[in-house]
C-alpha cells in the first residue's frame, strides 16, 4: 500500500509531474524574457506561462469536424505521458538511484514519443496546414534521431572502461563521468545539443512548430485543454531534455551540497546555450536541416566514435 502511494507521489508530485512542470514553466519564462530583452522590450511577467496554461485549461475544446477524434484527443496525452515517464525516470535515477540496466535505451525511446505524438495529432486534425507541419516534423525526426543515437554510442564507448561490465547501458553509471571533457565527448555533446534544439522545436529547427509559424504548424487545430497539454509537454521537455544531456555528458546531478549546486549550474548552462542558439540563428529550411543532421553531424560523430575507440583502446582519456 505504502509503496504504491509513494510511487504515486514520485510520479505525480515530486519529482515527477508537478515538480517538472513548475521547473519547466520557469524555464519557458526565461526563454521568452530573454527573447524580449533582445528586442528591447520588457517581456512577460514571471508567472505568465502558468497563467497561459491555467487559461487554456478553462477554455472550450473545439474538435475539427473532419478530424479523427480519438487520435486527435489521445495524441497530446501520449506525448505528455512520454515526457512524464522520461522526467520521472531521470529524476529517480539521480535522487533515488534506482537505475536499471539499459535505461538509456528506454530514455531514447521515450524522447521520441513527443514527436511521434505531434505527428499523430496533427495528421489526425485534417488541416492542410497541419499536414505540412506533419511532413516537416517527420523529416525532422528522421534527421535528428540518427546523430542522437550515434552521440550516445560515443558516450558508451568512452565510459566503457570505467564502469563495471553489464553497467555500460546504465544512465547512473554513465552520469558519473563527464564525457564532455574529451574531444570526442565534446563533439557528441554539441551534436546532441542541436538535436535537443530540434526536439524542442526551437530556432533554427522550429520548422514544424515555431512561434510565428504556429499558424501553419502542427498544433493549429488544437484549442483549450488539449493545447494546454501540448504546452505542458513542451515545458516539461525544457526540463527533461537538458537534464538528460547533463546526465549523459556533463557528469550528472548531485542531491545535496556542492554537487547539487554544480548540477543546477550545468542545467542552466545547457538552457542558456539553447536560448543563445535560438536567438542568434535564422530558421533553416527542412532540406538544409536534413543535410545538416545527416551529413555534418554524421561526419562529426563518426570522427568522434573513431576517436573514442582509439582513446579507449590506448587508454588516452582526453581523446
Amino acid at each position, binding site marked *: 500500500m505504502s509503496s504504491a502511494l509513494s510511487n504515486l507521489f514520485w510520479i505525480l508530485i515530486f519529482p515527477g509531474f508537478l515538480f517538472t512542470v513548475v521547473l519547466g514553466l520557469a524555464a519557458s519564462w526565461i526563454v521568452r524574457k530573454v527573447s524580449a530583452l533582445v528586442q528591447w522590450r520588457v*517581456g512577460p511577467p514571471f508567472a505568465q506561462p502558468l497563467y497561459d496554461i491555467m487559461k487554456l485549461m478553462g477554455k472550450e475544446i*473545439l474538435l475539427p469536424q473532419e478530424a479523427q477524434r480519438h487520435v486527435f484527443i489521445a495524441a497530446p496525452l501520449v506525448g505528455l505521458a512520454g515526457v512524464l515517464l522520461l522526467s520521472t525516470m531521470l529524476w529517480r535515477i539521480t535522487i533515488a538511484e534506482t537505475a536499471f540496466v539499459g535505461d538509456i535505451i528506454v530514455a531514447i525511446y521515450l524522447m521520441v514519443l513527443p514527436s511521434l505524438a505531434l505527428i499523430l495529432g496533427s495528421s489526425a486534425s485534417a488541416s492542410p496546414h497541419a499536414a505540412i507541419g506533419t511532413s516537416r516534423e517527420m523529416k525532422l525526426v528522421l534527421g535528428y534521431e540518427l546523430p542522437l543515437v550515434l552521440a550516445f554510442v560515443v558516450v558508451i564507448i568512452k565510459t566503457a572502461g570505467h564502469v563495471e561490465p553489464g553497467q555500460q547501458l546504465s544512465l547512473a553509471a554513465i552520469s558519473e563521468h563527464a564525457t564532455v571533457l574529451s574531444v570526442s565527448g565534446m563533439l557528441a555533446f554539441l551534436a546532441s545539443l542541436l538535436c535537443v534544439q530540434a526536439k524542442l522545436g526551437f530556432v533554427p529547427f522550429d520548422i514544424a512548430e515555431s512561434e510565428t509559424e504556429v499558424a501553419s504548424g502542427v498544433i493549429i487545430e488544437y*484549442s483549450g485543454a488539449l493545447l494546454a497539454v501540448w504546452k505542458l509537454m513542451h515545458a516539461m521537455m525544457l526540463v527533461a531534455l537538458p537534464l538528460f544531456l547533463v546526465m549523459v555528458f556533463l557528469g550528472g546531478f548531485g542531491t545535496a551540497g556542492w554537487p547539487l549546486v554544480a548540477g543546477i549550474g550545468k542545467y542552466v548552462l545547457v538552457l542558456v546555450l539553447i536560448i543563445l542558439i535560438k536567438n542568434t540563428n535564422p530558421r533553416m529550411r527542412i532540406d538544409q536541416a536534413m543535410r545538416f543532421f545527416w551529413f555534418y553531424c554524421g561526419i562529426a560523430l563518426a570522427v568522434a566514435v573513431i576517436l573514442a575507440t582509439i582513446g579507449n583502446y590506448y587508454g588516452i582519456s582526453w581523446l
Partner: protein
Amino acid sequence: MSWKTWSLKKSVWVFHVNTGACNNCDIEIVNLLTPKFDVERFGMKLVGSPRHADALLVTGVVTRQAAPRLKEVYRQTPKPCVVFAIGACACDKGIFHAGYHVVGPVDKIVREEDPNAIIAYVPGCPPKPEAMISGVVKALSAL
C-alpha cells in the same frame, strides 16, 4: 471570480481580424507589439490561429464579402472569448454607414452567429494604442 476568469484576464491571446478597415487600426494593433507599448508585459500576444485565441480584435466596418468570414472565424474561436470591435467603423460603421457594400457593424454580424457573444467596443479613429490597452483591461474587469 472563478479561476477560469481570473486566468483569462492574466493571459489574453488575441487574433486580429480585418473586415474592411483602412489599415490604421491594424497598424496601431501591430504597434502594440513594438517596444513603445509591448503588451507582452500584460500577457497579451498575437496568435496566428483563431483556435488559440481568447479575444478577436476586429477592425473595420464589415463588408459584404467579409461578413461570412468573420462568422467563420468566430465559430472557430473557443469560448469563452471576447470580441473587441476596434475603431469607430467596427463599433457602428462610422463614416461608412451609407455604403452599399457594407453589412456591419461587427456586433450585428457576430450576434447573428451567437446572440450571447461578449462584445467590447474601443471607439476612436483609430483608437490610440493606449486606448486599446485600456479597453481590453476594462472589458476584462467586467467579466
